[in-house]
């Protein structure tokens, strides 16, 4: 089953057959009708883009940049190859929504990409699939074969004269390849390292050609936006936060998984859909948008609705919609230890602040967690992260800095306790009990 729950579901609605991903099922659900309509009616590129603009679809990969606006940056009249690239390099800890889209509704992505290509005058596309989700990559390849055989991609699509070749490309699991320019480098066969911007991909992208990169969920939303109309899609959510969004809920809830809900739904409702807190324990903190989003304490998040603006007002970001729920049994130092290890490990090593700084932060946090913290460490961490954030080539430096900053800001007491007492504020047996995995030693 694709979704554990949904409210006004769009993308993942009606996917209950065993073969929901197949072309037959997709067409039966009304798939490829929008592509056909656009091509048959010779809808102008401007009209397609304006429909997307109307929907206020914001990029689902994390940055939340308005998709229609991004598409309008593409130099449509540029002669020669232009690319659309789908970013399915879903590597952010806590995020697993694109995997389900690829698994259950890959044709929506294909149709979305074809429409995007039409709107931007692109003739080639790539879907870059995260290296650790092989099954989905294979399934997407199968879906591509079906779509190609049915004439939905390839040369002279549906007799319209519009050509769009689409390929899948899988990575090898590097988190940094989810950064759009590192992803382009990786497709080109180079080491996945972000490029310095400017120039932006819209002018100098894949193989130096104009390129637009969107998230899987963003592309998958496109056919539905065109089907229901931009305005209706917008009205599903709230102003400036159009449509529904997939949330990957993980952590201490009873039913972790993917949920599709309209933007603007209160967090409390989402938590309820997930069956509430596991073991009835108290909510302690939530990372609302994937591991790089700043952590929010329980009282703040409970007042928020799940949309870009509200979460941003609450001091974090909606990001990719990966909601990591932590209850009172969590040691925040240990949680941060794991997070900062991830960013240290996944830094590409290209630019100095990130390469050196993420390792330094991890070493200090790790030291605190293991009882070797020093009183000046929190100031040190704040200073180091200040030297990383905003100084790097790509956003990974910021992504590594925000968790540290927010954990210390909201849960500084736990860190201070750790430094002073050389152990966790949350007793070990409580942590073990909460984890659900550890057996309390007799």
């Amino acid at each position: 089953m694709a979704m554990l729950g949904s409210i006004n579901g769009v993308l993942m609605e009606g996917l209950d057959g065993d073969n929901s991903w197949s072309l037959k099922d997709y067409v039966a659900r009304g798939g490829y009708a929008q592509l056909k309509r656009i091509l048959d009616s010779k809808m102008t590129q401007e009209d397609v883009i304006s429909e997307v603009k109307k929907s206020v679809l914001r990029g689902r990969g994390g940055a939340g940049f308005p998709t229609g606006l991004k598409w309008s940056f593409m130099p449509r009249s540029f002669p020669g190859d232009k690319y659309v690239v789908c970013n399915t390099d879903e590597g952010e800890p806590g995020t697993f929504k694109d995997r389900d889209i690829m698994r259950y509704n890959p044709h929506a992505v294909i149709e979305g990409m074809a429409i995007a290509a039409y709107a931007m005058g692109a003739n080639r596309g790539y879907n870059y699939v995260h290296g650790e989700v092989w099954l989905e990559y294979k399934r997407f390849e199968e879906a591509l074969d079906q779509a190609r055989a049915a004439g939905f991609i390839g040369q002279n699509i549906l007799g319209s004269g519009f050509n769009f070749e689409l390929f899948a490309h899988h990575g090898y699991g590097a988190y940094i390849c989810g950064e759009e320019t590192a992803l382009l480098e990786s497709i080109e066969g180079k080491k996945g390292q972000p490029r310095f911007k400017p120039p932006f991909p819209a002018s100098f992208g894949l193989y130096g050609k104009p390129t637009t990169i969107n998230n899987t969920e963003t592309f998958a939303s496109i056919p539905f936006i065109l089907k229901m109309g931009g305005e209706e899609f917008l009205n599903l959510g709230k102003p400036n936060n159009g449509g529904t969004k997939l949330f990957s809920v993980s952590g201490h809830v009873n039913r972790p998984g993917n949920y599709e809900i309209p933007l603007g739904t209160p967090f409390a409702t989402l938590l309820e859909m997930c069956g509430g807190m596991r073991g009835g324990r108290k909510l302690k903190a939530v990372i609302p948008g994937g591991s790089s989003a700043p952590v929010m304490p329980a009282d703040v998040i409970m007042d928020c609705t799940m949309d870009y603006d509200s979460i941003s007002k609450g001091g974090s970001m909606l990001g990719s919609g990966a909601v990591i729920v932590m209850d009172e049994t969590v040691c925040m130092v240990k949680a941060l230890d794991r997070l900062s290890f991830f960013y240290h490990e996944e830094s590409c090593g290209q630019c100095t602040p990130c390469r050196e700084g993420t390792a330094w932060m991890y070493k200090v946090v790790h030291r605190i967690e293991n009882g070797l913290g020093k009183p000046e460490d929190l100031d040190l961490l704040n200073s180091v992260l200040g030297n990383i954030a905003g100084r790097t080539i790509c956003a990974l430096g910021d992504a590594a800095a925000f968790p540290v900053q927010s954990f210390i800001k909201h849960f500084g007491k736990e860190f201070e306790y750790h430094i002073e007492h050389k152990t966790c504020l949350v007793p070990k047996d409580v942590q073990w009990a909460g984890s659900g995995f550890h057996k309390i030693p007799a």
Partner: protein
Amino acid sequence: MLEIEIDGKKAQVPDGSTVMDAAQQVGVYIPHFCYHKKLSIAANCRMCLVQVEKAPKPLPACATPVTNGMKVFTHSELAVKAQKGVMEFLLINHPLDCPICDQGGECQLQDMSVGYGPMKSRYTEEKHVVFHKSVGPLISMEEMSRCIHCTRCVRFGQEIGGIMELGMANRNMHSEIMTFVGRTVDSELSGNMIDLCPVGALTSKPFRYTARSWELQRRKSVSPHDSVGANLVVQVKHDNVMRVLPRENEEVNECWISDKERFSYQALNSDERLTKPMVKQGGEWKEVDWNVALDYVAHGLKDVCREHGGDALAALAAQSSTVEELFLLGKVMKGLGSGNIDFRPRQNDFSSDSKRAGTPWLGMRLAEIKDLDGALVVGSFLRKDHPLIAQRLRQAAKKFTKVSLLSVTGDDQLINLHARMTVAPAQLAAALAAVVKAVAEIKGVAVPAGVENATVCETSKKIAQSLVDGEKRAVFLGNVATQSADATQLHALALEIGKLTGAIVGFLGEGANTLGAHVSGALPSGANAHQMFEQPRKAYVLMGVEPEFDCANPQLVLDALNQASLVVYMSAFKHAPALAYADVMLPIAPYTETSGTFVNTEGRIQTFNGVVKARGDARPGWKLLRVLGNVLNLDGFAYTSSEEIRDEVLGKGAEFVGGLSNELSGVAISLPTITANGLQRIADVPINFADPMARRAPSLQQTADAVAPTARISEQTMAQIGIADNGQVRVKQGAGETVLVAKADNNVPAGCVRVSAAHASTAMLGDMFGSISVERA
């Protein structure tokens, strides 16, 4: 033009400039590591972060394009805080081993840490350790923990060297610079990476631990190793040359030199130096004083002249001799009544000697190569013969220049070639004639006489088209073309292309002072470099030449030398084979120990001074020849300085020599008839065997470019003559033979055997491009 204000200083900069460019223009220094003006922008060190008005974050000056009206602050609080933050990051894992680091004293990180580094580190975790690597005899990668990952070396390989030999492997702080699975760094330009490395990660293996940078005196010099005349800084300690570095001259060598130029200095301090005049008496070599030696020489030469006439005397000089040396040698010879002097020991075809309109040269300035729309290089082992010209063509080819190569092997030049033709040496003229014919056909004019029968193929058409299109085009004749038996025909054919298309015709130039030799009176009025040995003479003067390695046909030369009654051998180095045929050995000073002048292939006059005292009793060649002139009682040897000689030869204050022209008169094109029977030899002069200094530099002799010659034959030809890959073969030319290992190499044209010259194992062979026989040993 865009207007920008940096730290209050206003400037107008061209569109597309970066903040770093603008800062350099207004004279504001922005600290940096990864930025280098000759390399692509990486923006990875982040040291050059500056504050830009209205930008929320500090921006890297190296990568931020200037926008009109931009205001930049390089020393504001925000900028300095960012720079200091980066400096701290760079230092946390950098070992504190400056006292034992070779880069100490000339380290950008060290210098910058004085300005931006903290007094005390806040970093208390353990430092990261990176394993050392072995990448060959030139570059030391012993302390890779010092690396700050600026990737200058990587970009150098990709962009300047043309081959990515170093790369950054792994992620995060585990990133390290390495070669691909333990390979060595073999580029002929690799030493430049040592200069580029801003820290002590890549250091010079030969120089390591021999001196501290502050003990060294920096002296200017000019490279004697190839026709570019790279400008050098020779660093000296206690009258020893400790190392050689490039001196920036955008017009000549930019900021690069080849490894041959960088590491050959090792020979200067070696035991191989000839430091005492020596005379053979009764078959025994004796060290003697200069006056004894010069008396002996003067008497010997006079005796020969008296008994047999001036024509019984001949002199051969190396092309790395200075203008002053060549001029005085010519004067001595003239004084003795001999016109038998030459400086082109590898040349075969001298028929253009009386037909040249002027001094052959590049036809343009080196710096103009980048402006060419099309270039055809004829007969050249380009990368190895002219590493810096190859580099310029490589850069040009990346932009818009269509570079084509017509040569005798298919070696990878690491240039994005527009077209290439690889033919047997005997076919070079025919292949070039095909280009001439194709050009005429494209132009729709009559096919010039003599090339009517040339066979035009697709490639020759493609090359021809590239020489017709565009504003500025050139045909360059390389060393193979100069040394070929058809040199004059190749020259005439190139001129024919020039006539038809307006393309410039030029010579890449064989040696450091080829042009200087042409204008210094070292051209023969009597026997040339071939004739003087073909009809053996009674006495020979050799200056800087090692006949076994430096002559087109060592066999012929050695036979002549062995029968001569007097051989005067002037050299900076001991040369064991010369002990057999020489009668006098005179130690002359190499370029570091004498003043002198080289004229490079673009006609640029470059005078240099000695940087150290002459070793032992060695003396500058010009002084020796002046004294010899005096001892011989010849007129006009009253010079007191080398400058005086130079001014007499080249004119006072001249920057370029005059009379440059590649035109020929009275040469009719007549393609050589090819008698295709048997195998033909292709002899390259391997870069690290090319001159007496390189031959004696231990580090260069361990490089991949210094492996012993093999007999390289295409698989097809191997099968035809029944030879197995890696098998031992007996290679014969005339009376000489040697046993080599056969190697399959499909870069060698069919019917040819590539056997390098200039090596002891092949010195007994004959003509570089003559016929050769190969049989199983």
